[in-house]
């Protein structure tokens, strides 16, 4: 039996993989290492609405360059719609229009935003003072008292804002505030109170940037002016100042989305962060117009899918770790690729939290499973019972840790529950048949594999390489094929067979 075709395939995979990677490196200037780079966020807004059948008009606020962020490029996808960009008073808006539209409509807008600490804001004039704020009784007196209370304890608009918002906090909420909150929502109410007090302020909408998030919504922030100076306040906490990861999507106090000729309109955001040299970020955008097959890249997908792929492309790395440990070392695990799934969960939860959570769930699960074995159940029913038990354990731990102020405990929900249940079932049978020692060996082997897989998958350089160079997948494939052909001894066999060589 000739092995030639095998080596040809391996060679072909290696050459193609390396060639694709080098091509991407040279042509698109994607660097080999994640270092010395600028962070670029790709943000995608998706507008959904239901058109009535007649003409439709959709107006959406657009982000502009602002302190902390520079907008590099923007794209829209809206087949059949006419598109205009409007700009007034430093606020940018997109206007989509169509003569006839019916049914569910989807409009996309995506922007590349460079993290630039030195970026300057465009000119947005301060809001004009609102002369008359009309309240109906008894809200007028309540509002006045709330304002007076905060006013007396403040020196300028900023301290006034802080005092006012802190009066809205749960523990300090007075009778007047509670009365007002029955009639108004928190943010609009705060804004009215500012206006009433003669403080220049407006509500702006910001997006909290977190890598790989999908279906996110905007948050309302209050921008308070003192003359030409302004400061952002979080209406929930009264915290002053802009967090580093807050991108102001709408900064002129206008609406974010206005739809005419449609109902049920909704806007949601997906985002992903990528490291690129700032120059290349712009250039790759130019090259994008000349999209060829050679530029076969995950980056041509919608952002929502890109975020998914960032994780999916890491799975082969985890699998490679498993193959290495099993073929070259000879470690026993419970369930071949279970450790990879556990490692994926570790990426979400961080290592220590993940390990503690995993051990807790499996240990408690084993105890309960031990009782279930007395009930004489059919296998599928028993495993299902274990699944429900695992969910119960996870809920219990989440609530308990939240009560104790350990937010990390909430992340336990990232564990793949069905996999956990099968692990518990298998460990339990192993315990009955082979004793606790074998459970420790296989459980320990699985944990070790999961931790190593996690360390590999969480390595910034590996994340960078797998996401930016698809050719790496082919190289991994070739590596795994070669490992599948390895007939040498496993590391642990050198210990196992030692007695034979002694005499």
């Amino acid at each position, binding site marked *: 039996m000739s092995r030639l075709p095998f080596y040809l395939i391996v060679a072909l995979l290696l050459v193609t993989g390396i060639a694709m990677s080098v091509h991407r490196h040279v042509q698109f200037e994607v660097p080999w290492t994640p270092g010395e780079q600028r962070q670029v966020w790709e943000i995608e807004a998706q507008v959904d609405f239901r058109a009535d059948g007649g003409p439709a008009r959709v107006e959406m606020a657009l982000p502009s360059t602002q302190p902390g962020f520079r907008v590099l490029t923007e794209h829209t996808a809206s087949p059949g719609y006419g598109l205009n960009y409007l700009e007034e008073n430093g606020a940018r808006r997109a206007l989509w229009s169509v003569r006839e539209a019916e049914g569910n409509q989807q409009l996309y807008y995506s922007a590349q935003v460079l993290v630039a600490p030195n970026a300057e804001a465009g000119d947005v004039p301060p809001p004009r003072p609102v002369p008359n704020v009309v309240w109906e009784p008894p809200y007028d007196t309540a509002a006045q008292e709330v304002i007076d209370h905060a006013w007396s304890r403040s020196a300028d608009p900023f301290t006034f804002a802080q005092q006012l918002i802190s009066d809205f906090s749960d523990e300090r909420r007075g009778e007047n505030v509670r009365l007002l909150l029955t009639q108004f929502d928190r943010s609009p109410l705060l804004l009215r109170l500012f206006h009433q007090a003669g403080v220049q302020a407006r509500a702006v909408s910001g997006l909290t940037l977190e890598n790989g998030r999908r279906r996110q919504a905007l948050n309302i922030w209050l921008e308070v002016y003192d003359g030409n100076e302004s400061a952002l306040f979080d209406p929930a906490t009264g915290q002053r100042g802009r967090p580093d990861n807050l991108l102001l999507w709408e900064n002129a106090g206008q609406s974010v989305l206005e739809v005419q000729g449609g109902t049920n309109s909704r806007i949601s955001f997906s985002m992903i962060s990528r490291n690129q040299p700032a120059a290349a970020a712009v250039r790759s955008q130019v090259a994008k117009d000349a999209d060829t097959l050679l530029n076969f890249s995950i980056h041509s997908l919608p952002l929502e899918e890109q975020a998914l792929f960032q994780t999916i492309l890491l799975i082969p790395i985890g699998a490679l770790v498993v193959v290495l440990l099993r073929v070259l070392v000879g470690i026993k695990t419970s369930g071949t690729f279970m450790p990879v799934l556990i490692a994926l969960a570790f990426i979400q939860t961080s290592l220590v939290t993940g390990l503690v959570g995993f051990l807790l769930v499996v240990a408690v699960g084993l105890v309960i499973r031990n009782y279930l074995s007395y009930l004489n159940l059919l296998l599928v029913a028993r495993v299902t019972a274990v699944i429900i038990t695992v969910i119960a354990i996870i809920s219990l731990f989440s609530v308990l840790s939240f009560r104790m102020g350990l937010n990390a405990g909430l992340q336990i929900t990232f564990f793949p529950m069905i996999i956990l249940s099968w692990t518990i079932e298998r460990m339990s049978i192993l315990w009955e048949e082979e004793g606790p020692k074998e459970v420790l060996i296989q459980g320990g082997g699985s944990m070790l594999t999961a931790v190593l897989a996690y360390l590999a998958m969480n390595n910034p350089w590996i994340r960078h390489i797998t996401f930016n160079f698809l050719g790496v997948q082919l190289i991994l494939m070739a590596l795994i094929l070669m490992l599948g052909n*390895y007939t040498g001894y496993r590391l642990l066999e050198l210990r196992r067979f030692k007695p*034979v060589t002694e005499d």
Partner: protein
Amino acid sequence: MWTSPGKLRAKGIIGMNQRNIRYIGRYNDRRLYPLVDDKLQTKLLAQRYDITTPALIGTVSTQFGIKRIHEMLAAHGGFVIKPAKGSGGKGILVIEQRDGAHFVKPSGAHLTLEDVERHVSNILSGLYSLGGSPDVAVIEALIDFDESFAEYSYEGVPDIRVIVFQGYPVMAMMRLSTAASDGKANLHQGAVGVGIDIASGTAIRGVQFDRARHDHPDTGHELASLRIPGWKTLLELAASCYEMTALGYLGTDMVIDRQHGPMLLELNARPGLAIQMANGEGLRKRLDLIERQPEGVSPEERVAFAQHHFARSSELERVAQEAAEA
């Protein structure tokens, strides 16, 4: 603690990867696996080839059928229940005798009929089968094992594993259950493995937990005098399993019954490597020799060839003599 790959190679030791690729992958056609992975099929096939196996009491294939076990077992004092597709000795329940309404395991533990029914129910739902697929429970007569082995075994039936390569018996070992192995004959659980000389059927060397052993840990009986009766018949039986299954690299598990002599217990298409430890020798050289032999030789000739080429002298006797001289 560790040895070097070079030393292992010099001893001809085969590793797991090599076994999987070089032997199992090359000589065992995947298509034929069901013949040996399903013990019921093996049994029926063996009957067609006149290979003795333990008598079949019955099979249970539906949860509904479990209710009839009671009648099925009425006439039998001792019996063995095993999953047809089990692996590694998992899910095998041995009942030695009855005590009133109770069933007694070799360890002396008493089980109720309900316990037995639960065990069968677990088998049917695939708890012990490869990949968890639904399974069939096979109920067999208890093997009435040869009295001469009573001294060598604790609770369980000692069985003899013969590796058959392309029809040639290449290496053999006897597995003696111990208290540590809970009456099971699996070496990694603490059973004693005794290498058996292919030529004579006598013990060469014993190991427990991968360390040399000269006597049975529980009965204290020395292993040097272990001799398997009807050795040639046993080898021929094992060798003819090649014609029966067409699997090139095969592990055959045999037992010696007091009345029926050597019997085939089950076959294994992925036999383990511990046999090398029990024999103190690697498989590689023997397998290389067999690979150079022509096809189409009868089982009797193959056994004769193996007995001629694989003869070895006992290390146990040498140890015993040295002890006597000292």
